[in-house]
């Protein structure tokens, strides 16, 4: 399995990962890599500020297309601060709950696939 490292600081052009738009651009890059069956390393080096909005868009949204075991095997985190790990855990739990409704997954997939 290939490793693809994404430097989030470089991807969003700053230390504040706060907006839906920046999250969306990261999401698209992760999806592209996962479609190549790669393992994605998300490097949070130099990220000082994270919001649920950004994480919902970048990572929570992945649960509309991929199942939890697949993401567990293909996503790796680096340099994420302890308090941000807690936030990400909440975002992931919320995403799993949100997409439990099958209809939402279908609709979500439709939007992604156009």
């Amino acid at each position: 399995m290939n490793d693809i490292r994404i430097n989030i600081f470089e991807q969003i052009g700053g230390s504040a990962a706060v907006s839906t738009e920046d999250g969306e651009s990261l999401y698209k890059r992760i999806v592209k890599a996962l479609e190549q069956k790669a393992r994605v390393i998300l490097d949070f080096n130099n990220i000082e500020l994270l919001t649920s909005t950004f994480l919902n868009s970048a990572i929570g949204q992945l649960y509309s297309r991929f199942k939890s075991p697949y993401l567990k095997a293909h996503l790796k985190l680096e340099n994420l601060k302890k308090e941000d790990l807690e936030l990400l855990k909440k975002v992931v739990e919320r995403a799993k709950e949100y997409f439990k409704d099958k209809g939402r997954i279908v609709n979500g997939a439709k939007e992604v696939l156009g």
Partner: protein
Amino acid sequence: MLSVSHIRYPKVVREIPLHKGRNVMRYEFPDSLSNDFEGYSVLLNFHEKTRNLFLDEVILDFKRTSWFEANLCAVLGAVLNSVENDLNIVRIENLIPKIERLFRRNYFLGHFGDMKIRDLYKTAVKYRKFRVNEEKLFKNYLDFELLAKAVMPDMSNLLRKKINESIFEIFNNAVIHGDCQNIFSCGQYFPTKKRLDFTIVDIGVSIKQRVDEFLRQNLSGEEAIQWAVTKGHTTRTGNIPGGLGFSLIREFLERNDGKIQIISGNGFWEQTGKNAKSSRYPYDFPGTIVNLEFNIDDKCHYYLLSEIKEEDIF
């Protein structure tokens, strides 16, 4: 239950116009405006009295006002912005020296007066208006004005970060759900109480409108806010999950012994520490006011308690 029955609303006087063809409305503000149910009530009343004016003149008369909590400038500014969008003239009159100094320090009179902006007051939290796509400018504003070390030297870095996060969650909420063009903000630091109040306002769509549309119900303003601040509740329907922002802030402010107040539609909702209360106004506010009050004297020790492993995340 809070009640509006005892609130004495300010006097509204019609005057002879200085500008030909314009009607003049003089609004006399009360002695005191604070971050509480009554304070917001006056500003909602002011919005109600001015919402249908067009090509008129509005005078804000502060001759009786000796106390005005500066973060409320975000609410007043948002309302005045709407008043000016309807081509009305806005004049602020009879400020006592103390309030005038306050409005100069936070640049409010640069927006609604004749004040020339010079960066003289590096420690004041300024009144600002942002476009919804200016989140990077907003970040700079928080870093260099609201949370600058010169203003609040005692604060831990973790607390600074948690405050930043909370404020951004509200900013993003306004961007995603507010259907607005601008976001208005202002803050005030109370050094003796070690408290920081920060207010964010948008005028566009109220929480009630969003929630009613989503649930296909007709809730009161306060019920709609209560629904929206509950963990897992969101009006989003696409493939980006929601329903977490308010619960994160509530959880943090509970630990921090802070406060959150939300005014939207005709609803008022407040959580102080663990206790929540709500009420309703006789008028609608066509957007959302969120005031966050942080306890700055907080070392955030509770954040060291949880140990989450990376392998448990996904």
